[in-house]
């Protein structure tokens, strides 16, 4: 019997730190994409509530808890992220795909986290403009990404094959911000 061992995309690269900033991999157990079929948004939300105790959030928002979180990831598209893939019940009224292995997921934390992302993404992620429970599909240094606000910073998702480039750019920005704090 063959027993394949899984390896997450950032395993060899993180964790890393610079000044008061840390960057760690946060590979979830399961990510399922949910794309409700025509007119099925409400039904899909109800099915999710029943199966995972979380409903579909509005655009640009996240609902639920760490064990079962639904992140809006685009027009008519959501990711259920947590311990279990989406139940098949939801599959009747929405297109489901396993995305667990599609994404490299990392968490950037520290007071200067927003200043770091100022160097990488054109969206205003400062404390006064981007709150916990919000998410943005935007560009991270020429790459497509999903950036969600967390208690101590941000969760950043890029497609798996970009993991190394994304980690490198975030780390470089962490060092740059930290170094500039010493210049007056």
């Amino acid at each position, binding site marked *: 019997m063959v027993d394949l061992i899984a390896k997450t995309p950032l395993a060899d690269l993180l964790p890393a730190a610079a000044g008061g900033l840390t960057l760690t991999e946060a590979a979830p157990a399961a990510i399922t994409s949910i794309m409700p079929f025509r007119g099925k948004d409400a039904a899909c939300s109800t099915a999710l509530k029943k199966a995972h105790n979380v409903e579909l959030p509005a655009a640009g928002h996240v609902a639920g808890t760490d064990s079962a979180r639904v992140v809006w990831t685009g027009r008519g598209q959501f990711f259920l992220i947590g311990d279990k893939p989406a139940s098949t019940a939801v599959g009747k009224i929405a297109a489901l795909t396993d995305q667990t292995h599609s994404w490299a997921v990392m968490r950037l934390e520290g007071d200067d986290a927003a200043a770091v992302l100022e160097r990488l993404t054109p969206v205003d992620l400062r404390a006064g403009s981007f709150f916990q429970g919000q998410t943005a599909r935007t*560009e991270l240094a020429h790459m497509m990404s999903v950036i969600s606000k967390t208690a101590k910073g941000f969760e950043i998702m890029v497609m798996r094959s970009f993991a190394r480039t994304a980690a490198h750019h975030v780390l470089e920005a962490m060092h740059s911000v930290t170094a500039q704090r010493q210049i007056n």
Partner: protein
Amino acid sequence: MRINCPICGERDSREFHYRGSAKLLDRPAPDAGAEAFYDYVYIRENPTGLNRELWFHDSGCRSWIVAERNVTTHEFFKTELAVDAKRGAK
């Protein structure tokens, strides 16, 4: 340049891909004939004032957007989702 995505709100134009005239919304019927498809594929109004055009929010929410923009001042007047513009047109 900033574009007001109907879903994501105002974003830097570097997140968008420009396709061209919004006339592409009105693809001729399959049997409309060669002349209709020649006009659809090749002819462009190319105005100097208000241009109705198609943008794609490709590193954002991946919506196709119909915008009305002045092509001399670059000022945007209106943006809506292509699916809504299409439904409105019916």
